[in-house]
């Protein structure tokens, strides 16, 4: 209905292959980014940043990473939590070694470290597939978290076993720790997430993205037309882990400030991110954001209704929340297993054809 596409002709391949070929989509995305960058920072407060926007952005980024691996390349991973931990600890150690290093570079290096670790744990994917691989990634989950918990070097032999972020300035603006303003934390995270999301969109539309999807859809055929499974799968593990690692670093350094590995990066964290991409939609960049919004907002909503509205004690509310999340996940999988992104896709198709039904 709102799609008025008549007259949007493409006279070059660049225009035809643009990220958002339909003008209305383009304007919508630009509008959202404009609001996110130019309007939201003026209204943000501690609660919005810590309860909603920062977790939303960080989980969206982690989900984006997992979606690259699972949604685009078809390799199920249950080790996301551990890879986030790698990113977190990498950034912690890097800041420790090079306190003057620009935090963007720290983030990038944390991502690279995580990518390397991801590739190592991705190696079995060449021999094993499906659930076997999923279970194998649990090895990474348990081993890495154990390692961060046991090996003192990682947490600087701190007695609590926790890591706490140092105050970091980014071009003179404090972005970590309690002194950083919510707006600064938010804007920094938003910038990183936006740039990485657009890059992901580019990657999945290009040669490498097609290789991943080919492997996902039919690995034997992909191999026989000249795609190297080794390269494709490992690149998916690497890129995916890079994103997850950066997300982990942001999770630790900007969002939480200090973490304890067993709690912050346990297997539930892996499931959490997996839920995001299932509910958001496998194989969709948009899906990572929709899923993250859903997963972050619904519990808040539930808690507000139950504790605020119905007067549950918070322990009971926690139990009910777990129950309801489970039900929601099952409901979603039954009704639309391809997630919110697919729902949006369908709605969009309908709007483009409106008033026609097909």
């Amino acid at each position: 209905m709102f799609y008025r596409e008549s007259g949007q002709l493409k006279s070059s391949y660049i225009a035809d292959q643009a990220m958002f070929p339909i003008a209305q989509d383009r304007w919508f995305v630009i509008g959202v980014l404009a609001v996110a960058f130019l309007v939201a920072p003026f209204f943000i407060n501690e609660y919005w940043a810590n309860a909603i926007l920062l977790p939303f952005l960080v989980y969206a980024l982690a989900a984006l990473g997992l979606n690259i691996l699972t949604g685009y390349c078809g390799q199920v991973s249950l080790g996301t939590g551990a890879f986030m931990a790698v990113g977190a600890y990498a950034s912690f150690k890097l800041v420790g070694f090079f306190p003057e290093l620009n935090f963007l570079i720290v983030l990038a290096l944390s991502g690279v470290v995580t990518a390397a670790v991801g590739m190592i744990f991705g190696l079995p994917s060449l021999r094993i597939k499906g659930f076997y691989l999923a279970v194998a990634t649990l090895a990474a989950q348990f081993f890495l978290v154990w390692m961060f918990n046991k090996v003192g070097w990682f947490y600087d032999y701190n007695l609590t076993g926790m890591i706490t972020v140092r105050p970091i300035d980014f071009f003179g603006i404090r972005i970590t720790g309690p002194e950083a303003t919510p707006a600064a934390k938010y804007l920094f995270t938003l910038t990183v997430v936006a740039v990485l999301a657009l890059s992901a969109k580019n990657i999945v539309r290009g040669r490498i993205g097609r290789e991943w999807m080919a492997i996902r859809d039919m690995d034997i055929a992909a191999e026989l037309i000249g795609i190297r499974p080794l390269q494709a799968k490992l690149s998916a593990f690497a890129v995916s882990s890079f994103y997850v690692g950066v997300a982990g670093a942001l999770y630790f350094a900007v969002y939480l400030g200090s973490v304890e590995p067993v709690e912050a990066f346990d297997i539930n964290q892996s499931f959490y991110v997996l839920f995001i991409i299932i509910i958001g939609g496998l194989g969709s960049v948009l899906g990572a954001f929709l899923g993250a919004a859903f997963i972050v907002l619904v519990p808040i909503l539930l808690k507000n209704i139950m504790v605020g509205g119905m007067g549950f004690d918070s322990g009971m509310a926690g139990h009910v929340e777990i129950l309801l999340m489970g039900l929601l996940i099952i409901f979603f999988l039954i009704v639309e297993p391809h997630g919110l992104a697919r729902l949006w896709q369908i709605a969009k198709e309908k709007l483009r054809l409106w008033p026609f039904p097909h």
Partner: protein
Amino acid sequence: MAFDIFLLEVIISGLMTGVMYALVALGFVLIFKASGIFNFAQGVMALFAALALYDFLAEDGWFFAVFGFTLPVWLAIPATGLIMVVLAWVIERTVLRFMVKQNEIILFMATIGLAFVLEGLGDILFGSDVKPLDIGIPQGASDWLLDNFNLYIEQLEIFAAGTAAVLVVVLAIFFQRTRIGRALRAVADDHQAALSVGVSLDKIWVIVWSVSGIVALVAGIMWGSKSGVQFSLSLIALKALPVLILGGFTSVPGAIVGGLIIGVGEKLAEVYIGPMVGGAIENWFAYMLALAFLLFRPQGLFGERIIERV
């Protein structure tokens, strides 16, 4: 000589634990074989069963609150079994039948959702505090073994291993000898074939989930007796996963042998490697073991080599 005794103790203890792993893995294999579903909720089912059983036995449970008395153990166990059957039926009615045509990853995800539901439900109904479960299994080391062979082995472990072994045998007989068992095996190969045997698919699913529910109950009893009924009980599912990759998702003997290997390997590592690296390696060692194994034999212990075709 003392060293050898110690080693033997470790191995036997490993075998005992292995049998318990095998028991949980068996629950997975049953469902996977018959429905292609990798049931992540298996562990939570064990927790749920243990919680229900506790409720029948304890005086701070719902059952006592409603009826004013508790059930004896011999009645509480079948009652819990009944609850697991009802649960299986509810799961089939509300979840599985709507997902027949979905791909396996989606089904897998659904069982994670199911695990959340059961966990939430268990917490709401029975509370999240640790509950001791005592159904009269003897505690402490076996004096007889200690006296005659100088072996220190928990009686509970012996009892658990024995029960598990019995259950495995019963299941094997169920699968090999009964009509429904044969139908279940048929369904693993071909849904159509199963239908032609005259058993409807939803019925098969209810049966298979009931059976794995009862397996979960047994596992719940054993682990619950050992360390109390609490949330961490559901994590035994995670213990069983390496067993599965080792033994193969569809192989009953694989689950048993795999369970034993993992049990022994883990105990050995815990005793001999653990102290060197700071302990608590049982969380991941089994996985690493299975993974290393897989790299050399991707199809698992009992899986057949797949010839890929195009």
